[in-house]
């Protein structure tokens, strides 16, 4: 046999081995991505992404975000053409300590009661993957809340702890200043540093800043922000004083677009952020500039069109969009997170601004910067949504309607890489493509 030929065969064999290696490598690659969300318009404000890109997920984490990742490298590909892809929404104001306790005295039965809702009932179907409970549990009930709700939910549940030891058992408990203990509260917060993001002061009817100041004292002990449901005091207390003299930068005013109507918890009505001529009060802009956080907290009684529409027109945007989901808001004007976000879209806020205020902004406010973005290595909490075009109406807390043309609809929601919601089956095969 010709020596040259043998050499050539060896060379060819070498090439064959090399090719085989390449094939093996690509086979490895073929198994690399668990799920590829392909062709969607990615909005990831933290990473300044606002374009068509593919999102690859592996082992429950974001693996890659790039244009044209080949389907061959994924076990499963979801076609997201025409849809938006964003970080899973963070709803920063909810009440999810659902249970069976009788409401105490007057109140909504929020603490371990029927006034709260179960998180998974509302989250994934509106693109939400993280909720932050806004003070449903105080230090006395927080263990119970953890065992009963947080540990048993697919949704990531974080929480503001109530400044009142008994949380929101009854309105009367929010008046008991002897049960507002910064040291005890801080102690429980340090027990759950990954879950408790701050302190909530709420529904206090006294004519002083006592509960707010104690919450701030607790916040100083733990280096966490406070969130305040303000405006129950008789006579009214000034919100300017709240923002400028009591709040630290990073502290949160919720129910931003509340009207001044009286309710069970606001006997005199909250002081609105706009004046009698619907002009945003100058100190509001100043407060926001100085780092005070304005949260939407829509709720059953805290979102009024005239306040919101006029404020937005004058360039005042809330820092965060949230629902204040509980029994009295779920079937009323609020409905769910997607509905509240849609309201802002229809008031003229851009989709990028809406997503920012429902992902990366709340993540920053609650000091959980590992959330609210699609950076490589982040837990794959992903929201894939559709913006429906048509004629839609949106109601406020007074039961009046504002008409719009856009509505956000959650198509596919992933929590830690797992499909937690799939409205139209875009992640599944056709029924007759599978034998049984």
């Amino acid at each position: 046999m010709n020596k040259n030929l043998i050499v050539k065969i060896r060379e060819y064999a070498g090439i064959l081995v090399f090719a085989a290696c390449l094939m093996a490598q690509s086979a490895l690659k073929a198994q690399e991505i668990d799920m590829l969300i392909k062709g969607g318009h990615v909005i990831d404000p933290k990473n300044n992404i606002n374009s068509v890109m593919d999102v690859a997920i592996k082992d429950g984490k974001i693996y890659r975000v790039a244009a044209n990742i080949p389907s061959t490298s994924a076990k499963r590909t979801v076609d997201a053409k025409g849809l938006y892809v964003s970080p899973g929404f963070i709803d920063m104001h909810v009440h999810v300590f659902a249970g069976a306790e009788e409401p105490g005295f007057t109140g909504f039965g929020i603490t371990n009661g029927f006034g709260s809702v179960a998180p998974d009932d509302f989250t994934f179907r509106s693109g939400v993957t993280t909720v932050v409970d806004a003070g449903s549990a105080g230090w006395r009930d927080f263990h119970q809340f953890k065992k009963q709700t947080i540990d048993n939910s697919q949704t990531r549940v974080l929480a503001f702890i109530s400044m009142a030891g008994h949380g929101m058992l009854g309105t009367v408990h929010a008046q008991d200043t002897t049960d507002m203990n910064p040291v005890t509260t801080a102690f429980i917060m340090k027990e759950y540093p990954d879950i408790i993001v701050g302190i909530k002061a709420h529904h206090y009817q006294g004519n002083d800043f006592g509960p707010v100041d104690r919450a701030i004292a607790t916040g100083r002990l733990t280096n966490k922000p406070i969130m305040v449901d303000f405006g129950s005091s008789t006579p009214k207390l000034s919100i300017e004083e709240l923002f400028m003299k009591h709040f630290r930068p990073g502290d949160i005013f919720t129910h931003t677009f509340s009207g001044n109507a009286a309710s069970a918890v606001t006997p005199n009505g909250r002081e609105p952020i706009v004046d009698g001529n619907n002009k945003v009060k100058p100190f509001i802009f100043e407060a926001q500039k100085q780092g005070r956080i304005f949260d939407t907290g829509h709720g059953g009684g805290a979102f009024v069109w005239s306040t919101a529409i006029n404020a937005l027109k004058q360039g005042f945007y809330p820092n965060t969009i949230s629902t204040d989901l509980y029994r009295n808001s779920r079937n009323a004007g609020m409905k769910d997170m997607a509905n509240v976000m849609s309201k802002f879209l229809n008031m003229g806020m851009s989709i990028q601004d809406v997503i920012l205020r429902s992902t990366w902004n709340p993540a920053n406010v609650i000091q959980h910067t590992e959330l609210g973005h699609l950076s490589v290595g982040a837990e794959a909490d992903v929201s894939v949504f559709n913006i429906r075009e048509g004629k839609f109406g949106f109601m406020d807390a007074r039961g009046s309607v504002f008409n719009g043309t856009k509505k956000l609809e959650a198509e596919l929601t992933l929590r830690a890489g797992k499909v937690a919601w799939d409205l139209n089956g875009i992640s599944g095969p056709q029924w007759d493509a599978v034998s049984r």
Partner: protein
Amino acid sequence: MRTKTAGISEFIQHKFVRTVQRIAAVLALILITVTVEAQEIDILLKGGHVIDPKNSINAKMDVAIVADKIFRVAANIPASLSKKTIDISGLYVTPGIIDMHAHVFHGADVNSISANSPGGLQADAFSFRAGVTTVVDAGSSGWRNFPLFKSQVIDRSQTRILAFLNVVGGGMVTRYDQQDVTDMNPEMNAYMIKKLHPTILVGIKSAHFWGDFRSVDKAVESGKLANVPVIVDFGEHSPPNSIESLFMEHFRPGDIFTHTFSEHAISETAGGRESIVDVKTRKVKPFVFAAQKRGIIFDVGHGAGAFNFNQAIPALKQGFMPNTISTDLYNLSMNAAMKDMTNVMSKFLAMGMGLQDVILRSTWNPAQVIKRPDLGHLSVGSEADIAVFNLKKGNFGYMDVRRTKISGTEKLEAELTLRAGRVVWDLNGISAPDWQMPAITN
């Protein structure tokens, strides 16, 4: 002093006055009637397409509500007669939907499947937004814990909650409790239904039994004593029991087989529920038609594991229709293929069932099955539980429990839901005034 003439003239005068008085009275009466009528209707749903299968209505009609009752259903009821008129042209109006299979005994016992458990959902969180006004809990509670279910959930919910009592006294706590034949007490069950809660308890549930027919038979025995139907989840017998025997030998006409379209990978060791469609030939088993003819009720009970297109699509094609459409709403089904009642109803539309048939199976049929003929229709005088739907057109997908899908071009969306004459859901604010109305000040 009266003269005769004067008397006559007085008489005439008197008669004239009386006539005038009478005319005035009649006029006043008419006026009053008109005024009363003008105020008579509280809410008028105007211009919608009414589907009310019980009353054979399938046409454009207006629906008038006074207080909490249906006042009138007719074409062209003038808006001037109503305090409030809601324009629903382009939308469908039906009786409030009855979801005959749900789990809503919500509570805080994390170790329980359905009774007083987070696994049971809050009814109001899912009902109204899907057009549902009545849910029937399918055996989450037994006679021992029904009083807790009532005080904790039923009495606090806006949704009308009815219930099948579990044949087991403790209800659905664990799989093991469901096997306890010693806790299946027909006398207690019947007493609870007939004597104590006849307006809430509509039947008996047998579920998750691993053995022979004892659980079913105890349920039927209870049902005979209380004169109510039984509903059976036949899914965990090992080896599987014959559904033909269940339908033809154990069931009475009116008894209910739920999870009709499930398909389990059955083996002698694994057990499971025998399917109604033969898995090899994909033909509906002949005795299934015979059973339905005999009066056995086939309920959908979609759930997280009990709806397979390989069963439903061939069955519907071969002319087998379920008697009732229901969700089997609970924590594991809510975010999976089931989602909510409108999604399950839309799935049947996508499989080719007509809208009237879908509504019939979600209103008047379940009402009859649970022997509540006061529900599921829009007859004058009935409680004003009403669903107003938008039938969306577009490209939609519907999944089964295997997470495979079919495509559809229609989807029901609950626009407006009324429970006892009150608006409890309004998706797009069609019952609301414009936001620029004068501000409420205080």
